[in-house]
């Protein structure tokens, strides 16, 4: 069975088409709490020009965004806000943890600073650095685009993978206020 296609027709899979659309129009939610936010602004500005990768439309409403960039340390008083904003964003959505503080707490190993946002919300990409250079953030966005193209599906089935649902080992060993830590 042979079907003659004209030259200007391309055949693809629907999943790949959806992923291609999604990856080239990431709308970032700038959750910038510290100096990483300055680099985030520099990334969006003309010199580094995030628009080249289709991710320049920073929106301050989580309902219009699908990429959360957490730039800076998150204190425990801010964490419920972060979680609420994450929940308000529409699926499919991704998260970049930008800088040492958002990824691990950085130098702020104190009672009030969250030691890595991945303990409380899902994270797709980690950007090291204190703060990272704009090139690093751009690289993270390119890598995220690759990941979306590679794994993405129209229905978002990649978010349901059982391995992603496993809580991290470090999380199981964290002491909770008023309880003794349980090592499993």
């Amino acid at each position, binding site marked *: 069975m042979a079907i003659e296609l004209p030259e200007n027709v391309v055949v693809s899979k629907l999943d790949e088409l959806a992923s291609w659309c999604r990856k080239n129009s990431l709308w970032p939610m700038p959750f910038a709490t510290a100096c990483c936010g300055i680099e985030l602004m520099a990334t969006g500005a003309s010199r580094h020009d995030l628009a080249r990768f289709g991710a320049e439309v920073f929106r301050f409403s989580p309902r219009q965004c699908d990429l959360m960039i957490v730039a800076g340390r998150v204190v*425990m*008083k801010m*964490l*419920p806000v972060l*979680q609420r904003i*994450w*929940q308000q*964003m529409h*699926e499919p*959505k991704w998260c970049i943890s930008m800088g040492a503080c958002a990824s691990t707490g950085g130098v702020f*190993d*104190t*009672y*009030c*600073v*969250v*030691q890595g946002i991945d*303990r*409380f*919300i*899902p994270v797709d990409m980690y950007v090291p650095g204190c703060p990272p250079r704009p090139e690093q953030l751009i690289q993270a966005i390119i890598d995220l685009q690759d990941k979306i193209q590679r794994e993405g599906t129209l229905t978002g089935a990649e*978010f*349901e993978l059982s391995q*992603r*649902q496993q*809580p991290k080992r470090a*999380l199981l060993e*964290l*002491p*909770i*206020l*008023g*309880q003794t830590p349980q090592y499993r």
Partner: protein
Amino acid sequence: MPIREAVSEVLRARIEGLEFSEFRGRTRVVVPAGRLLDALRLLRDECGFDFLADITCVDYLNYRGARDRFGLVYQLASLASNERLVLRVPLNEPDLVVPSATGLWEAANWLEREVWDMFGIRFEGHPDPRRILLPEEFTAHPLRKDYPLQGRGERHNFPVLRRRDA
């Protein structure tokens, strides 16, 4: 610069139990907690110290040569004569209560809330004695020296969001 002789004379004559000292040109006065409000009112109304610059606190736990656990510090200034004065109130557990200065300076409101939040010193008569920096459900006073720097698990006490939750 040190405060004028006249001011220290008035203080000495009207409030008993004061200790005066001077360090790098700054006068410090140690006031017992019971006479704090009298001293503040006297300084504001009769000595021209019309500006409350700061209220803060020091925890002297395990500090070399310290006699008291806490030192509550009031920084006063006179906008007219450009003098500054440090008032220090020694406090010990379990008696961590001082009268609130909100009746004298409105500025004391948030400063006292911060000292309560961080050190657990109660200000009697404060109109709104809530925590100011930390969440309401926080149980400790973290700037005390016996509080561990990494906390007692408060920062882990949150729900964990996964992909399927959102």
